[in-house]
């Protein structure tokens, strides 16, 4: 996994609560058996005026000029500012894959759906939870200032605003450690293989009905 230490980038606001993972990446793109290439179809149903299909060249598709992503001032954004319950719905990891592939490294929102939140950390994308009032303020500042950028320092757990003010944020210590070092969960868990085997052996004795019954 790619390491995450410090990220400085342009902020794109998505002013909408309950953005679901169907919104982030529509189902037809889930037919891919790869992990990459989803960025061009991020927010597909809102970004383009027509219906997208996997494998299609997207360069000639009509863009929706009203959708925030298509406004020139947000081109190249790497920080996504969002509303409550971001990423609800389907567990598709294609959602963080699409966000990451497009170039988003940080999401800032008052709350997230659990599965999406978890999936982000597995892909080097940092979802930050901050108070709704502060999110409201940042929405206002982004709107008022073209080129509004934020710096996110994971080690120090702060967001630094253009005026130099800092906003602290909380992050689970294990997830922070994995992100900072770009660590693969599986490798880490397999360091505990002895514990897993010992548990499995006890469990097989206590609940043998979960082992070996075949149709």
């Amino acid at each position, binding site marked *: 996994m790619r390491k995450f230490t410090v990220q400085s980038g342009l902020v794109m606001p998505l*002013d*909408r*609560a*309950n953005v*679901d993972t*169907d*919104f982030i990446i*529509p*189902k*037809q793109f*889930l*037919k*891919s*058996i*790869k*992990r990459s290439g989803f960025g061009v179809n991020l927010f597909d*149903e809102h970004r383009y005026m027509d*219906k997208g299909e*996997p*494998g299609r060249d997207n360069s000639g598709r009509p863009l929706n000029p009203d959708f925030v992503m298509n406004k020139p001032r947000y081109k190249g954004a790497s920080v996504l500012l969002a*509303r*409550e*319950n971001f990423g*609800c*719905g*389907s*567990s*598709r*990891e294609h959602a*963080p894959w699409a966000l990451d592939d497009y170039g988003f490294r940080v999401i800032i929102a008052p*709350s997230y*759906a*659990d*599965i999406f939140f*978890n*999936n982000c950390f*597995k*892909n080097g994308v940092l979802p930050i939870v901050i108070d709704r009032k502060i999110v409201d303020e940042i929405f206002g500042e982004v709107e008022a200032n073209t080129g509004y950028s934020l710096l996110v320092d994971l080690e120090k757990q702060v967001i630094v605003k253009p005026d130099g003010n800092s906003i602290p944020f909380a992050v*689970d*210590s*294990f997830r922070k*450690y994995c992100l900072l070092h770009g660590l693969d*969960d*599986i490798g880490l*868990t*397999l360091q*505990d*293989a002895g*514990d*897993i085997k010992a*548990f*499995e052996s006890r*469990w097989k004795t206590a*609940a*043998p*009905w*979960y082992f070996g*019954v*075949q*149709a």
Partner: protein
Amino acid sequence: MTGKTLYDKLWDSHLVKQRDDGTALIYIDRQLIHEVTSPQAFEGLRMAGRRPWRAEANFATPDHNIPTTREERRLGLEGIRDPISRIQVTTLDDNCKEFGIFELDMNDERQGIVHVVGPEQGATLPGMTIVCGDSHTSTHGALGALAHGIGTSEVEHVMATQCLLQTKMRNMLIRVDGRLNPGVTAKDIVLAIIGEIGTAGGTGYTIEFGGEAIRSLSVEGRMTVCNMAIEAGARAGLIAVDETTLAYIKGRPFAPKGDMWEKAAAAWRGLVSDADAHFDRVVVIDAADIIPQVTWGTSPEMVAPITGEIPDPEKELDPSRRDNMRQALKYMGLQPGTRITDIKLDCIFIGSCTNSRIEDLRAAAAVVKGRKVAANIEMALVVPGSGLVKKQAEAEGLDKIFIDAGLEWREPGCSMCLAMNADQLGAGKHCASTSNRNFEGRQGFGGRTHLVSPAMAAAAAIHGHFVDVRDILFTTDRLV
């Protein structure tokens, strides 16, 4: 010392290792696999040169991309016309063969939606921890299993280690007291709950559903309730084990037999929350207050009783919710103040992991029997959840009832719940759907979904708009 909740018991019994930072390694008894969220996980194993930790703990079946017309299915894999979908299905077959994983492939009579097939085969058992790369894995909690949806990275992690990295959730109890009124179903219960607590109401919690109304449900009805726990934000829903649970499981192919059954059943009877268990949040709902529900917006929490009307966003005080409601009504092409019974429909979908089991099909058939689908309905699909559900329905003559009424009788799969196959809702069309999500574009680009129970969808098919199914069921001679 206070007692334990059912969730506490399931967590404690599967705890491999508690780390100081609050995360834990939880042992996983069963992983269910389908074709959409697994290819990248298998590829990850291959790239790292890893094998599954315990191949026999995995159980696979393709469902999302599967065509549902008889003609297409007769052709087997060749019947999947979309080459990208076909590759995904054949990739699952190839991966299961390579890694030694049990699969009910698309031509197997037992194939179907993974959340229907798992319990049907007894691959889902009480007291298990179950995962699947699919958010509706919460369904299996109906059998007293700790089951939740995971992402593809976690699918690979469970394949490789038989464990999931987790932090413990908080405990919520939703108690539905008293008896349901006739004509009100499990679907109406869960939609009413989501209307009450909101789509993020269960975030960070495992929800246990209890109370007399829940205990009186069949296991199939319980699965409908737990299925939609995720629509309330909870990764896992749970219902305590009772004799109804045990009667459902006994004799299923993967269930223990003989002496082993007796021992397992004795252990499973303890899978209930202790009387003095502590819940971080308790929500109490009176079953008598629940009447058939219909969603009018683009989130399952945007729901109203059939006797109600579409609310006015301008009366909503919270600005974020107000914007959401405005966006939803614009997308749905609906006006505030419209009576729910005045919403005209174009399509009907009876199916999905929420409502495609035999009891769902019986309930829908009881409503359409001897009647005809309204002229304005362009498409009405009935898609059984599995090959065995289909077989049972045909043995009872339900297929003929649907066909005579003008509905299409299809082959099993996820179908138009998420429209990854050819079954898609057209732009601007309103669909009465027994599925679980009314998100924008969910059933097809520009499609407008209304979530309802099977009986309500069937009644809407006959009338061409929403009607109170209780008027149909109880004002004729066909009392049910």
